[in-house]
């Protein structure tokens, strides 16, 4: 993990998986996004972690509150469109001072192709901030690792919800036209 800024990282997912191990993250709750695919694979292969498949993102806020009550740590993975689904449930994190770390892969961000992703992508940071979630943004692979490291440490030590927004400069803008040809 040393000298992150000096070495060019190929992908953030492996060092972030190591951070999750280091912080004894047990429950990995997610609605998948392409940008999280590598990390999800690493977590699925990790016997110390349980990947919980949600059907809507706010479920993860509730699930990980229960995990914390029971003495386990978790992490919540979603894309930016899912942040909108979480708004009211985040009151659980703030009113109970529950630690929560959300890794949000951005859509409607740098180079977006799909118009329907833009409104929520554009509002993601505002919405999270309005609900009392501390937001950090990362636009390089190195910055993702650094911000996740900081958020894990801070959220669980100061018992508050935090989100790391992973910009589309990192994950790459998706163009379905290119995917299908």
């Amino acid at each position, binding site marked *: 993990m040393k000298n992150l800024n000096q070495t060019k990282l190929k992908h953030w997912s492996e060092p972030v998986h190591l951070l999750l191990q280091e912080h004894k993250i047990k429950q990995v709750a997610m609605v998948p996004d392409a940008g999280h695919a590598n990390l999800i694979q690493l977590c699925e292969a990790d016997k110390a972690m*349980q990947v919980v498949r949600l059907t809507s993102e706010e*479920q993860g806020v*509730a699930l990980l509150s*229960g995990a914390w009550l029971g*003495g386990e740590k978790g992490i919540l993975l979603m894309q930016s469109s899912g942040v909108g689904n979480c708004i009211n449930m985040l009151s659980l994190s703030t009113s109970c001072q529950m630690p929560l770390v959300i890794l949000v892969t951005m859509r409607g961000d740098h180079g977006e192709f799909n118009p329907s992703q833009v409104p929520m992508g554009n509002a993601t940071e505002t919405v999270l901030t309005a609900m009392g979630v501390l937001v950090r943004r990362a636009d390089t692979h190195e910055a993702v690792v650094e911000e996740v490291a900081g958020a894990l440490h801070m959220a669980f030590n100061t018992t508050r919800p935090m989100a790391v927004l992973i910009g589309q400069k990192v994950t790459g803008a998706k163009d379905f036209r290119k995917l299908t040809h």
Partner: protein
Amino acid sequence: MKKRLQRREVVHFLLHQRDDLMVVAGLGAPAWDITAVGDHPLSFPLWGAMGGAGLIGLGLALAQPKRNVLVVTGDGEMLMGLGSLAVIGAHKPPNLSIVVLDNEHYGETGMQKTVTGLGVDLVGIAKSAGLAQSMLVTNKTELENLRTEIYKKGKSRPGALFAQVKVSSEKLPLVLPPRDGAYLKNRFRIALLGPEVALA
């Protein structure tokens, strides 16, 4: 029409001598109901988070696989979080029970009808979502059976237990739990995990 079960009597029957059971209650009447039995550090009554009670139960059940978790909630709260039944059905925690006190109304907002009163079958939904042991409870015998199932140790069942308990819709006196969420969380964790979790 046959007389329906009374919610406070149902919850009292399920929670008296509760052993080491951990209890999550959905917002509104279920939170008042569990408090009427007696406030308890291993109770986590919700004041909001509508639709989230079942998933709080799942997170807790996964974290504490050797202990039993009971979620007591209402039909309105369950209906808002129907997707949670799919998540719970798929992950099959054998130490989780979900009891829906179904009065077919939104009790805190003026007793408007919910869709369970219009034919929506929660037991059918739960079964289809993979909660193999899902039961409708309308009388004392079925309630006794439900209690036995909730307290079974070292669960042999293939996943979470689900029960829809049909109750009458009368308005009962409020018995309010503590409102400070941080207090509710901390006392729960201290009771379950020991005082050191507050100092770490």
